[in-house]
């Protein structure tokens, strides 16, 4: 197992290097550049733009800039944002609490709801509950995140005043209760897609296992239904859903742009979106690398979980 993880680690490092090279070159070749935002500002004179170009090192060819960026990355210095002049690591660091809070809440919500819902749907196949759940899942898949977010806002915050509209805290209120109130809607919006898809995967996985001989045997032995479900059915239906969860990890982390924008949540997604729009290369590259690392880690974790779930899978 240890050697397997080490081997995957080396693969990941090579992959990350390739991702960074391709990412950096595409970014540099894309139309526009970090100074375009100033070109649109009547107060910024052309001489200033020229000077800024030189100060930011943008008059060098992209491969030289890439080399110095890579050197910084390896030595733990991720450079300074072109726009705020602040260290990129600081900017990411201050987003981590908000990002983790939102991601872990959405993740917990998704796990807490999708498993029971999926299991219930499988055990009560074609009941009205199952049908309602199917309808709900397809509805969730079909609706755009921004629309759902705004509708929730209109209903729960504007109309009924049950929850705050947006933000992470009330002014002057740093209590946990206040944080939870602000967290509810964004976590729901971010988690609901996962709830819909994971519960569908679990349902179909369990339906397949439910028809197996060993399940009938377990019932025949006189095992109570909940034990059959938990030990024989649920565990054996987890492989596909673990794959999906591994792939979803980086989406929850860096793909929360729309949710963060609508609910003014100060997370990582907005930082990277702004960097993308402004062509703030150092921040943009940091976002790309973090997203790539999470995707690789998520996959590795999924692969390792397979072995824990299915004793037949062994990694040498």
């Amino acid at each position, binding site marked *: 197992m240890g050697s397997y993880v080490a081997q995957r680690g080396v693969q990941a490092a090579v992959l990350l290097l390739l991702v960074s090279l391709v990412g950096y070159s595409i970014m540099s070749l*894309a*139309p*526009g*550049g970090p*100074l*375009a*935002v*100033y*070109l*649109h*500002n*009547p*107060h*910024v*004179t*052309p*001489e*200033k*733009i*020229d*000077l*800024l*170009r030189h*100060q930011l090192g943008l*008059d060098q060819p992209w491969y030289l800039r890439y080399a110095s960026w890579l050197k910084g990355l390896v030595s733990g210095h991720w450079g*300074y944002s072109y*726009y*705020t*002049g*602040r260290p990129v690591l600081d*900017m990411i660091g*201050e*987003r981590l609490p908000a990002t983790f809070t939102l991601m872990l809440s959405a993740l917990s919500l998704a796990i807490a709801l999708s498993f029971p819902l999926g299991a219930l749907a499988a055990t009560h196949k074609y009941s009205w509950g199952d049908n*309602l759940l199917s309808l709900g899942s397809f509805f969730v898949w079909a609706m755009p995140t921004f629309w759902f977010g*705004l509708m929730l*806002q209109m*209903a729960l*915050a*504007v*109309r*009924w*005043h049950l929850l*705050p*509209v*947006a*933000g*992470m*805290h009330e*002014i002057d209120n740093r209590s946990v209760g206040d944080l939870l109130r602000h967290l509810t809607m964004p976590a729901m919006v971010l988690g609901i897609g996962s709830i819909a898809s994971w519960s569908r995967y679990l349902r179909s996985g369990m339906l397949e296992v439910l028809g197996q001989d060993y399940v009938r045997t377990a019932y025949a032995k006189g095992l109570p239904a909940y034990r059959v479900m938990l030990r024989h059915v649920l565990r054996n239906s987890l492989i596909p859903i673990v794959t999906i969860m591994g792939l979803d990890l980086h989406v929850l982390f860096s793909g929360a742009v729309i949710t963060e*924008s*609508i*609910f*003014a949540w*100060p997370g990582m997604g*907005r*930082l990277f979106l*702004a960097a993308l*729009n*402004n*062509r703030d290369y150092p921040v943009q590259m940091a976002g790309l690398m973090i997203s790539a690392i999470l995707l690789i880690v998520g996959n590795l974790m999924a692969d390792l979980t397979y072995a824990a779930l299915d004793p037949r899978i062994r990694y040498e």
Partner: protein
Amino acid sequence: MKPQIVAVVLVSLLVVLPVHRTIAGPAPGTFVMAITDNPDNLNPYLAGLAASSAVYRFAFDSLYTINLKGEWVPALAASYAVSPDGLAWTFKLRPGVRWSDGAPLTSADVKFTWQLATNKDVHVTYATGFDKIVSIDTPDPLTAVYHLKEPYAPFRDQVMGAALVPQHVLGSLSADQINRAPFNQKPVGTGPFYVSEFITDDHVTLTANPQYWGKKAKLQRIVVRIVPDENAQVNLMRAGDLSVLSIPAARLDEVKRMPNITIKRYLAPTYALVQLDEYEFLREAPVRQALDYATPKESVIRNIMKGQAEPAVSDLVPNGPYANKALRPRPYDRARARKVLLEDGFAPGPGGVLYKGGKRLEVPLWTVSGRAYFVQAMQVIAQSWRSIGVYTETHAVSAAALFGQNGPQWNGKDEALIFTWGQGVFPENKINWHSSFIPKDANSPGENDERYSNPEMDRLLEDADRTVDEAKRHAIYDRIQELEFRDVPIIFLFWLVNNNAVAGIVQGYDVTTFNTTLPEEWSTR
């Protein structure tokens, strides 16, 4: 009835039934506003985004400032005098002014501001006019004398109205340290409020400055929330979380119906334009005039802007002191547009498109994606241009792609770009129309991106900058605007109208094209 049907009916009723509850609004003494972008830098000379000036304006003062009517009134300076040759501007500072950290404001700060703005190693984004200064004398702590290279009429708008920054905080730092100073997030200023908290992408809190030289602020603080989504901003206003908000035209009617909200409508000093990049056919004035005739501005204002815009004839705000009131927009007249083109030697060719010298009259339209009204206006204009025989494709791309170095402006072909430009109230038009500001290639500086060149315009612009006499300068600008109108270097589409929703609990707040009322006069019940 089945339980599930009962559930569905109950949920539907909850959604449909109106809920009446009083809106609490922000706490008394707290004024809450919303901006879309995270401020990039709160040092006025290093900031690149409008979001930054929306915040630092509360924390900094200038020597003189503009009131609601667009007139200059004293702020940090008590008075000023100009030498007869226009080369020396002497300012007497207001005594007793302190920075928010308690240090006194002196003429050394005035001198340092100029040194900062012209420091080549600092990432300065705003320094127009400061390059005209040769030296600043500080004979005593309350007197500062600017010496200029040449008479410079926009001095007041560019330098006198610019923020002063503290020498005692930044003066001992190297350029690199200034670029990365904590000051850029938590600046020290002389304004009625100071930045007490800045949580990136969340909010900035400005607390009333106890050292303030003017009237003590009625508010305890101003909270500027950073909310990227416009609809979420309107929802915040509707939930009573904001004191004031600029309302997008699409949601104006809905907000107008809300109780306890007043709408302040004002003309913004920002105009929408079609920039005509003069490379081939667009170098001919008749072609540009024809495109102006074929641009349905009234229809765009009425149907796309929902009336929240006003016609534009030049780049000077129509209710401002320099607007040429004699000019009227060209009427929308496609027959006339086509006639102008035919007289210019164009003839219909394949597909009804006009040709001259075997070349097709091709003017693609470009705009920034993401702002619906730009994209809609582009389609309407393209439709009309096509109908007079211009071959027009449309493209909506990101701002970085539109204005950046591989963008359409640099391909050497005729192109038309739709965007907005904040000219401000006072003219400094040289960078826009003077031929020396035509960029030579994508990497060279220059703001005259349309590549307009006219010797008379060049001469007028140089004279305007040198003419300190107000009446003569007005006359020159009248003529400059006549040329803008005659030659159509760009098509002026319209001036934007802003609608600020103000919560009923707010008092003392007003806004015009030129400024808001003083923030220290704002209050909430």
